[in-house]
């Protein structure tokens, strides 16, 4: 939870409330007392519609505008994994001037307001209502326009976003039920104006003499205030405006049209908790709005969603049934409005675009929803952003998971979020649970139907691999199968003890336990690999450093195997990995050093056999020089590496590298780390791996699989 923020509205004072005024947020509606930082405009009100509304509705409008605006001013820090996403939730204390402070400060109203908003946006709310000092008229927010014809007294206020669901709802009301409706649209961005107008005109053509009346709502904030795009509390503003208009018209209800899968918005994956999935039209929120509006109206008030038991594909089918398929392409579903262009009206990758594409495909209506309106095709194209990849995969995985569930009991256990909705739906909780399960089952079926259809259409491209490797249709090639069986069972017995380079990482296994991976400690792991390859052999650290340094040049993947080992028959596949000599400043000199080192490896063995200690020391000195020269010649990341020019530096570097590697191993395999600590013995310039009893290691690198 973020630290508490005080939101001071209008000209209210923080005195006695806020203890740190410099962190307070000041919101002021324009038109109340001169120029403010928020403007509320309710446009296209026909003069015949207007009638005065109780002042509690006037208060409600302003409270909702302040809540919505504060939601966009405070940035949500959702991605802080160190605190389990603690920064996602805000702690807000509003101080709001109202006309009816006694009403708004009553325990019942405050409780309903804070609990509904808290569930809606996942934030903590506290309100202090003070007496408004300077009264003004509600008409300050209204813009009258009599250009639209009024076809009799409206019977229903419908919230109209311009998406597929609200479009289907409007058509249902106007064409099927022949009701006179007012459609209320929140215009969050002017980018949508033209498309809204087109949709409005087309609706009018279909409606004949029952043309719906359109009212637009805009909330404009000064630029620096638009910091957070999530708008979790948007529906509170939306419903408050709808209810105020309904009250003006003498009606006692507002209606949302939203399919049930989106309304319930069950999490698509484990990271989606609480309000990360919006609850805009969640049944608990709708019930909260209804109860709050009943208190404000002082009479029963209804907020409902007739599409709660429909999937989006079923909504699309409804549009087609109404003979209005030609309107589908003009509806707007995309939530990434900032990506919208004249050509691409949908991003194609946000959760809503994905759901829309699957729905129109499942409903066999994708011919009415042109693909070129989408910036990206979710089925056949790569997704560049990580969150787009996660969204698509999670959407599919949820459908796959729901499809595999056998009964509603399993559904409740798997999607605990469902339990938050059961008491806010019609019927008993058991009946509601069964209906929600059936709804999601149907949706999962539609998702897989759409996918099957797309796989069928693109079968050739999938087989020929002409679609990108991470395109959805390639990735779901085995989709639906939970366990796959390898075509040929592996009969190879995995050795009990492994310490080897595998591709770009080190792989290890000890005493027959799990095979684990090691990264970021290449040098030390290379040294350990060399020691394990030659148990009981006392070796000069300079010799190992030389061998490792040469390997670093000859084997870019740094296999960790000394050149002589390769000659002795390690199964390193020659070819690509051996051809790249790395970034060597003077390759000829390095090659000469390598050749000399090879000679020295032979000479040092001979000197040891002859117990010629003076010669051994002489060779070690030369090896130290060569190791330094080769290391500097190789460099790391384009930088010159300084090995130092003293023997101690080489010894220290060796030991530190080995210690770092053992420490990294310890995180995953304590017994192996303890074993290495016990058995790798250092003395002066010599190092040896001496296990008791002997341990057989597989140290052969695997460089191409």
């Amino acid at each position, binding site marked *: 939870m973020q630290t508490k923020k005080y939101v001071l509205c209008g000209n209210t004072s923080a005195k006695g409330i806020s203890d740190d005024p410099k962190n307070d947020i000041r919101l002021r509606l324009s038109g109340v007392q001169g120029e403010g930082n928020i403007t509320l405009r309710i446009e296209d009100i026909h003069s015949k519609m207007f009638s005065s509304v109780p002042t509690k509705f006037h208060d409600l409008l302003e409270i909702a505008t302040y809540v919505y605006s504060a939601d966009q001013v405070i940035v949500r820090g959702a991605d802080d994994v160190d605190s389990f996403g603690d920064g996602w939730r805000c702690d807000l204390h509003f101080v709001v001037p109202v006309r009816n402070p006694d009403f708004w400060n009553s325990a019942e109203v405050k409780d309903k307001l804070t609990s509904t908003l808290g569930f809606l946006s996942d934030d903590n709310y506290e309100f202090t209502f003070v007496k408004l000092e300077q009264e003004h008229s509600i008409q300050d927010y209204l813009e009258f326009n009599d250009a639209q014809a009024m076809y009799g007294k409206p019977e229903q206020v419908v919230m109209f976003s311009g998406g597929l669901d609200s479009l289907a709802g409007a058509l249902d009301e106007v064409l099927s039920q022949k009701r006179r409706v007012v459609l209320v649209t929140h215009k969050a961005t002017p980018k949508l104006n033209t498309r809204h107008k087109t949709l409005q005109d087309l609706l009018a053509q279909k409606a004949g003499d029952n043309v719906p009346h359109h009212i637009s709502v805009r909330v404009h904030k000064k630029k620096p205030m638009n910091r957070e795009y999530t708008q979790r509390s948007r529906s509170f503003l939306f419903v408050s405006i709808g209810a105020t208009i309904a009250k003006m018209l003498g009606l006692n209800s507002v209606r949302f049209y939203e399919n049930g899968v989106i309304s319930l*918005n069950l999490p698509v994956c484990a990271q989606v908790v609480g309000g990360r999935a919006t609850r805009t039209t969640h049944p608990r929120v709708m019930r909260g709005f209804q109860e709050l509006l009943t208190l404000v109206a002082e009479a029963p008030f209804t907020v409902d969603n007739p599409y709660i038991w429909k999937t989006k594909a079923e909504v699309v089918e409804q549009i087609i049934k109404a003979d209005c398929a030609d309107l589908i392409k003009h509806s707007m579903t995309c939530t990434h409005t900032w990506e919208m262009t004249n050509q691409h009206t949908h991003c194609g990758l946000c959760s809503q675009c994905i759901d829309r594409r699957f729905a129109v495909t499942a409903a066999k209506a994708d011919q009415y929803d042109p693909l070129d309106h989408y910036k990206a095709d979710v089925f056949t194209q790569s997704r560049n952003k990580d969150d787009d990849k996660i969204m698509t995969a999670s959407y599919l995985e949820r459908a796959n998971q729901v499809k595999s569930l056998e009964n509603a009991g399993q559904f409740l256990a798997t999607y605990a979020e469902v339990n938050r909705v059961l008491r806010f739906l019609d019927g008993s909780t058991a009946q509601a649970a069964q209906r929600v399960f059936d709804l999601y089952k149907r949706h999962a079926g539609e998702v897989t139907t759409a996918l099957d259809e797309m796989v069928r259409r693109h079968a050739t491209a999938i087989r020929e691999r002409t679609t990108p490797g991470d395109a959805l249709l390639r990735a779901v090639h085995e989709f639906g199968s939970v366990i796959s069986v390898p075509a040929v069972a592996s009969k190879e017995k995995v050795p009990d003890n492994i310490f080897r380079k595998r591709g770009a990482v080190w792989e290890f296994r000890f005493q027959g336990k799990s095979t684990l991976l090691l990264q970021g400690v290449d040098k030390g792991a290379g040294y350990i690999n060399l020691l394990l390859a030659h148990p009981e052999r006392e070796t000069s650290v300079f010799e190992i450093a030389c061998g490792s340094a040469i390997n670093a040049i000859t084997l870019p993947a740094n296999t960790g195997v000394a050149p002589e080992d390769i000659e002795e028959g390690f199964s390193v596949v020659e070819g690509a990995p051996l051809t790249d000599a790395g970034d060597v400043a003077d390759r000829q000199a390095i090659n000469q050093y390598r050749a000399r080192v090879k000679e020295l490896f032979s000479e040092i063995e001979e000197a040891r056999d002859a117990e010629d200690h003076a010669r051994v020391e002489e060779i070690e000195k030369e090896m130290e020089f060569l190791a330094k020269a080769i290391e500097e010649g190789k460099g790391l990341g384009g930088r010159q590496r300084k090995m130092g020019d003293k023997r101690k530096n080489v010894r220290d570097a060796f030991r530190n590298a080995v210690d770092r590697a053992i420490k990294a191993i310890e995180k995953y395999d304590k017994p192996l780390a303890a074993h290495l600590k016990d058995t790798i013995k250092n003395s002066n310039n010599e190092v040896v791996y001496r296990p008791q009893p002997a341990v057989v290691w597989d140290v052969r690198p695997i460089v191409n699989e």
Partner: protein
Amino acid sequence: MGHVRLGVLPRTKAWKEVVGLIAAGADVSQVANATITAAEKAFSFVMDDKGYTEAVWLMTQLSIAAKKDDPYAHLRSVGISLPDDATLPDVTAGITDALDRAVDSSRKRSDLAELSGRALVGAVAEALQPHLNGLFPNDKDTMRAALSNLGKQKEFGDLSRSFYDRLTNQSLQYFLSKTLATQVGDGMRFATMNQKAQFDHALDTHTREASVIVRDFSSEWFSKHRFEEGGDISRKSSDGFAGYALKKMKDELQAGARTSAN
């Protein structure tokens, strides 16, 4: 409407190691271990989390209620209201309501509280379902009989195991779901969605097997404390249990519990 906010893992050293291990093909036990290590700071706040401690408290009280003369009255006293003819959804919704109320009144909503709620509801549903005849029991005694089972020492161990299995699995997936799906595609860790699903399945198996240690500990703890506290379990005892049980689970996962998924 219908937005979903997703995140990705930060590019810190510890989380880069997790991502690197997944990309390199590490098995679930090592990935789980690396994830818990990377999330050490997040887990350090767990005992301050009202949602987690309340979930453990309600779990103990479900089992305590089972041996009371009026189990429903006891459950009501801890915030779980059930109708006389309670069904499985009544119980799971009742638990969810009780948790939400407790967390809301403390003004401490959190992601861990959400994960704890999911784990508890899932564990209770799993425990009760075999004793019920679907969602619509024939009579009101069916649910009472099912709930009374939770009062047995062994059953509490199983319930607790299921809870910690789900909680750790969900917590690991809370982090891992911020990266796993980015590694799906030809030439990547998971060539297909199916391979990623197999990884998820292996992680399920891994946490389930690791949770055995909690089952044994829990059943003994429950029996001992119920006896010592005269048929009840106090919040203090429950909080102590919550801290120790999660530590045991984390230690087991960090010790690299072996799974059949390797």
